[in-house]
């Protein structure tokens, strides 16, 4: 016993809360960072590499950005993706807000089953969703030769179907923190149910709406599997286009396009977080 305590005493005195001084913790932290950001930083770095092959560094250039921006097919795919993501976001956030509100506000038979059914697509493998969507559109004979924005309708509908549950869950979670007395108070002051929803519930939901919108947008923007199955012959989205480009070779042009996409996502996320913070601050009362 005496020996044991003397051994302990000689050790470096690391306080019980000094986790950051422990080696294993530092290793884990560095390891996760490399694991998460190693590939992405390589991708970004080599988008500026003055060489056709992504192997050795040959100096800085922006020419692959120019090339990417001059590639009409790539730009078209990019525009398609943004358009699809935009409509997906709007529709799925509205649907999700309504579904979440109904689930939170009312009691009805089979409510648990309905709630489960809304969340289920999250765990259904994407490949199955994709095949099901393709079969569905073929079965109902959805026209595949519509003019431009409408030609994206199949993909958009499919994207709404799979991103809406994510948004619904986020908004539903936000509603849990809503003080029901706020709604009752508005009602007591003369508001109809609809008025309570607009004046009181929606402002509270806002951070959830923003988070849900961000989720839907990014889910839609980078979806490959479901898009691949539901895209008509003449519609290409950004991920699908990138896929077809790398089938021949990974060019810095692809790196450049991907970097632009990463930048765009980061900016959107930053805006969403800012909006959310402002809301949270107002909501604390």
């Amino acid at each position, binding site marked *: 016993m005496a020996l044991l305590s003397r051994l302990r005493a000689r050790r470096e005195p690391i306080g019980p809360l000094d986790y950051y001084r422990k080696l294993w913790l530092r290793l884990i932290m560095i390891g996760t960072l490399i694991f998460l950001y190693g590939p992405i930083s390589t991708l970004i770095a080599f988008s500026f590499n003055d060489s056709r092959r992504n192997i050795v560094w040959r100096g800085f250039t922006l020419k692959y950005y120019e090339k990417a921006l001059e590639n009409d097919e790539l730009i078209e795919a990019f525009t398609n993706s943004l358009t699809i993501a935009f409509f997906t976001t709007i529709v799925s956030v509205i649907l999700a807000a309504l579904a979440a509100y109904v689930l939170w506000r009312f009691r009805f038979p089979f409510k648990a089953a309905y709630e489960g059914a809304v969340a289920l697509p999250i765990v259904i493998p994407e490949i199955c969703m994709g095949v099901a969507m393709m079969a569905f559109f073929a079965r109902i004979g959805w026209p595949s030769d519509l003019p431009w924005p409408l030609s994206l309708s199949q993909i958009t509908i499919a994207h709404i179907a799979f991103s809406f549950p994510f948004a619904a869950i986020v908004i539903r979670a936000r509603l849990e923190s809503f003080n029901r007395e706020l709604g009752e*108070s508005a*009602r007591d002051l003369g*508001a109809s149910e609809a008025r309570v929803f607009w004046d009181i519930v929606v402002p509270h939901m806002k951070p959830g709406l923003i988070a849900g919108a961000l989720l839907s947008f990014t889910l839609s923007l980078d979806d490959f599997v479901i898009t691949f199955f539901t895209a008509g012959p003449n519609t290409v989205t950004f991920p699908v286009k990138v896929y077809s480009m790398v089938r021949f070779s990974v060019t810095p042009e692809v790196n450049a396009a991907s970097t632009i996409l990463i930048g765009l996502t980061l900016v959107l996320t930053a805006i969403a977080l800012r909006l959310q913070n402002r809301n949270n601050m107002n909501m604390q009362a």
Partner: protein
Amino acid sequence: MADMQDPIIRIENICKTYPGGVQAVNNVSLNVNRGEFFALLGPSGCGKTTLLRMMAGFEIPTSGTLLIDGQNMADVQPNKRPVNMVFQSYAVFPHMSVAQNVGYGLKIEGRPKKEIAERVQEALDLVKLGHLGGRMPDELSGGQRQRVALARALIKRPSVLLLDEPLSALDAKLREAMQIELVRLQKTVGITFVIVTHDQDEALSMANRIAVMEQGVVKQIAGPAELYESPNCRFVADFIGKINLFDGQAKANGNGKTLVETPVLGKVEFGGDANGPVSLGVRPEKVRVSREKPSGNLLAAQGPVTDIAYYGGYSKVFVDIGAKEPVLADITNAERSMGPGFENGEKLWVSWRAEDTLVLTS
């Protein structure tokens, strides 16, 4: 138009059973008069909030009728009732400024902007928040938020203002100040107040009449003094203030008198007719303590002092006379000295007048 003499709220045989099977309110009947400050008092979980929420329209009675201003409320939605409510959490809208909160009810009514602004200022002045209209709720203290909730409910000039435990979230000092202020406010606006509270001091000091509830049932409805001096059952006697209780047996002798026998106090005669088990009760401030045996028409017993607690203005003296619990006597420290001048263990007499004794049959 309803008669002005009619009660503003008339509740008849109202019951409420929640879907889970909890019977929160059980066959309650009561009237609230116009211009009255009415309190629903009872321990937590006795159904006070449920009763109040039925008045506001947020709970639907399982059976019974509720009339407000002579009108049956059965099919009237909460937003159409002539009552407004101050919620326990105050429920101040966090995304609206103080002025927007207070003006919300008028905005819904579609009043012109100018009228809203004037009436908001008037309502804020009434609750002494006149200078804070531009603040957001998260910049307010709990007491200020409560005033916002009050102003917001009063601005609609309801027939009845319902308040659910409005003071329970405030600290002791502020609570006392708000008690006085609520009474002042009620007199100023002349609106009927129905307040829910579990705090007997609050109810006694503020209300004109009080309904004491226990487990969904109203036990007694009376003014504060009557509740304190003439409770109609053990529950009310015990819940309102402190009381010494002695179990005994009553026997009516047929000519308007009843003989009550208790082990510690012997046989005592009271007016009225009662038979079977009863309790004799006496409030602590009515008990006198003395070294010598008191004389006169008194109930008296002797025993050792078990505890003395000094409270400054008065002291609590506990004397064990052999009953279930020691008798509590509140002794006013009327003269400047070191406490009541008794010692622990000292044998003392406790006594009180027969007419200060309560005979409780239930």
